[in-house]
C-alpha cells in the first residue's frame, strides 16, 4: 500500500496526536477518528499499525484514497 490512506478507528483520538507519525492528520467523524496519512511504503504502514496496536485502538477500516 502506498500513497494517501485513510485509517478509521473507534472513538475520538485527541487531535494532538497529529504528526506523531510523519505527516499524519487526525480528524473526527461521528464517533470515529480518521487518520489520514501519505504512506511512503509498506514499513511506514506497519509502523503506524504497530502504533495503533500498542495504544489498543480498535481499527474499523483501512482504505487507500488513490485511484
Amino acid at each position, binding site marked *: 500500500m502506498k500513497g494517501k490512506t485513510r485509517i478509521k478507528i473507534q472513538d475520538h483520538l*485527541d487531535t*494532538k496526536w497529529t504528526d506523531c507519525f510523519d505527516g499524519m492528520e487526525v480528524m473526527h467523524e461521528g464517533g470515529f477518528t480518521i487518520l489520514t496519512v501519505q504512506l511512503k511504503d509498506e514499513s511506514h504502514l506497519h509502523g503506524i499499525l504497530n502504533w495503533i496496536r500498542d*495504544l489498543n485502538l480498535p481499527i474499523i477500516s483501512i482504505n487507500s484514497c488513490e485511484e
Partner: protein
Amino acid sequence: MLLTKLHRPPAGNNIVHRSALFEQLNLGLERKLILISAPAGFGKSMLVSDWSLQHIIPTAWFSIDNGDNDFASFVNYICAAIQTIKKDFGLKTVALLQSPNLPSAESVSALLINEIIEIPKQFLLVLDDFHVIRNPEIVKFTAHFLERLPANIHVVILTRSDPALPLARLRSQQQLVELRALDLGFSANDIHYLFNKKLKLKLSSEEVISLHAKTEGWIAGLQLLALSLQGREDISQFVRDFKGDNRYIMDYLLEEVLKIQTEDVKEFLLQTAVLEQLSAPLCNSLLNRNDSQAILEALEQNNMFIIPLDSERKWYRYHHLFARLLKQRLSVRDKEAVTELHKKAADWFKNNAFPFAAIEHSLEAGNPEKSAAYLGEIIEKMWEGGNHSAIMKYGDLLPADLVKKNATLSLFYSWTLIASGQVQKAAPFLIAAEENVRERLKDPTATEEEVCGDKKLFGKIAVALGYKYTFLGNPEKIFSYCKIAMENLSEDDPLWFSWGWYLTGMAQQAAENILESIEAQKKAMEYGKKAGNNYLITSIAISLAYSETRLGLFKLSHKRCANLLQLLQEQGYSEMLKSEWSFAVLYGNMAAIEYFWADLDNALENIQKAYSLCQTEADVTTKAIVVLVYCLVLHGRGDMAASEMKLKELDEVVKANAVNPNLKAMYVALKGGMLVLLNQPEKARSFFETNGLDPDKKITYADEHGYVAYALLLVSEHKVEQAFTLLARLYEMAAAQNRVERIIEIKIIYAVIYKFTGEKEKAVLNLVQSLEYAADNEIIMNHVNYLALINDLLLEVYKVQKTGKTKIPDSLLRKLKLTIAKREKQAKVIIPENLSSREVDTLQLIALELSNQEIADKLFVSLNTVKTHVKNIYAKLEVDNRKKAIEKGKALQLI
C-alpha cells in the same frame, strides 16, 4: 548484559489473582507452549508473574527489547535467564556465539536442548514482548526449539501479535495453551473486586457494569481509571461523565490522572517518559534534582504504571502504553525540550557505560554524528561478540556518508553485510574505508601512536577486501589484499592474522596451488589457535584436510579430520556436528579417504552422515561433492542400483547449478569412467565430448581427472598412440605436484595399455610401480576398481613380489588380496537378492528345523504355498536339499 531484562516483574499491590486463568495456565505444565497474545495493557506479564509466584514454579524470565533482534544476543539472554534456574547453564553455547561467524539456528537449539534435559526440574521459560522480534533467524530458532522441546521445560510467549511459529501444529498435537484478549480482560466481577474490595471505592453494580462495557475489560484502562478515581468525592458523577464521553479512554483518563498530581510529580512523569528505563541517578542528572529515588518509590507505591526492573529498586520502567501517552503529551507541549532531554540522557548513558542507550538517545536527539562516534568505539567488540544484527541495524540507520567517514564503522558494517550475502552493498563502504585510512597514513603530522593504529586498521580493511573477493572468485585480488594485510598486521592480532592467512590459503586452493595453500593454512591455524576462535579453526582444518586429500596424503588428512571431530566433541559441540552443514565436507572427506583405503563400511557410515547434513541447506559444491563420494562408495560396495541412483541425483545437481570447474571435472571423470568400465565406449565418448574433453587442447589441472578415464577409452577404441601421448602429459602434471593418487591411477592405465600391446613386462612393471606409490597411504581402491582389467597382471605382480625385487610392503598386498576376496564374496551375495522376503522367512524357519506344515502355520499361509517357496529357494540357491540350503543360506548371511 542487562540483568534487569531477566527480572520477573513483581505483582503490584493492587493485583487481582485470576484463579480461573491460573487453571488454564496449569494445563500448560503438561504442554510445550503457553501463548498469551493480546494488545498492550491486558496484564499479560502480571498474570504469568503472579501465576508462577503463587504456584512456586521455577521461572526463567526474559523481557525482550528491540536490541535483542540479534540472534547472538537473544540466545545469550536465554542462557542467562536459564542460569537463574541452573548455574553455569549454556556456557558452551555462549562461547560458540562469541564469534564473528554464527552457528546455525538448528545447532544452537540442539545444543541448548541437550543441556536443558540435564536440568533435574520442571521450569518455565518466559519470553516477554516477543512481538518485537523481527529477525527470521530467531523465529526459526524458536520454532526448532519448540519442536524438540524436552518435557521439563515449558515456554511461555507473551506477545502483542501472533508470532510466525507453527502454532497450528502445536495446537493439533495438544501442545499449546492459548490465552487471548477476550480471556484476559476483566469481567464485571473482577472490576467489582478491584474497585470495591481492594480500593474500597463503593461503586454500585450498575456502575461496575457500565465501566465494564466502556472499557471492555481492558486492564490498563481500568488501572488508569482507578488512579483517576483516587481521592475523588464525586465518583458517581465521574463514572457517568466517563461513560458519556467518546474520547479515546487513555487520552481522557491520563488527563484526569495528571490533573490530580502535584505539579512536581507531573513534570517528573512527563520528562522522564523519554527514557526506556530509569534510575534515580539518571533522573537526577536529567532533571537537576536529587530526590528522584523517593519520587520513583512513591510512584510505585501509588501504582503509577511504573515497574521495578530489579529487586533493589535501582532501575524502573514505565508501562509501555503509559510512557507512550506521556511522551506524546510532552512532545506536543515542547518539542525542543524532548531533544534536550535525549541529549542529556545520551551523555549520562555514555558516561555510565551504556553504549547502546547512548547511541539510541543521540539518534533521537537528532545527532547521528555522536551516535556514529559512540558506535565506532564499540563496534569491534560487537563484531567479535557476533552482534551482527545490531551492527546491521545501526549501519542501516545512520546516514551512509557518516558511516563512510568513519573507517572503523565502514569496516565492520561492510564485513557484516558481506557475511550476510550483501556483497554489492558492502563494496562502497570498504572502498571509502580504504581511501580514508590511506589518506590518513600520508599525513606527516600524525603521531606514532596514530600511525600504528591506522596501519592496523588498514590491515584489517585489506582482510575484509580479501574476504569480499572470495565471494566474487578473484584469487589475484585476494592475494594482493592479503599481502597488504600481512604487511600491516602483526602477531598481536592473531584473529586477523589468521583470517589473512586463511584467505590466502583459500585463494591458493582456488588457483590450484595446493602446496602453497597448505603452507598458508598452517600459518592460519597457528594464529587461529592463538585467537581461540572455533569457527575459524574448523574452517582452516577443513581446508587443510581437503588439500591434503588432493595430494594423496590420506593418512594425514584423515587424522586431521578425526582430531578435529574429537576436539569439538571434547569441547561439548557434538550436537553441532549433527546439524551444521559445513561439517558435511569433513565427513565427506573422511568417507572419500576410507573409500580409497577400501574401508567401505566406515566410508558408508561417514558419507551417510555427510549426506543427511546437506539435506536442508548447504551450498551446491558441498552437496555435489557429497553425492559424488556417496556414489563412489556405493559403487565400491557393489551396490550398483543405489550407486546408479546417486549418479542420477548428481546429474541433476550438476545440470541445475553452475558448479565449480574442479567438481565438474570430478563428475565427468566419475561418470565417464563408469561408462568405460561398463564397456559402453560410444556412450562414454559422446559424454566426454559433450563435456568438452579434447586431448588436443591444453589440459588444466581441473580437467585432468576426466582425462585419465578418457585415456582408457582411447585404449578400448584401439587408439593406442593417442592414449600414450595423453597419459604422458597427465603423468607429467601429476608428478609435478606429487599427487600420488593420480599417479597410481595413471600407472594402472599404463599397465592396461601395455597388456593390450602385448608388452607384458612393461605392464607388470607399471603395476608394481603403481602399488609402490600406493604403499605409503595404502591407497588400494583404484586397483580394486580396475580389477577386471588387471586381475591377471596382479597374479604376475604377486610372483615378482616373492622374488623380493619390489618395494611393495607385503602388508599392502595382503590387504589388497583380502579386499578382493571380500568383494568376490559380496558379488556372489548379489545372486540371492532375488530371494523374496517371504522366501527368506521360509529359509530361516527351515534352519530352525521346522516342518513344512509348521512353517505354513507360522507364516499364516497354506502348505502348498510353503512348498512353492521351498522349491524356489532350492532353484535360486542351486541346491537340492534342506541341509545344503541351510549351509548356503548361512554362507550368504541370510540366516
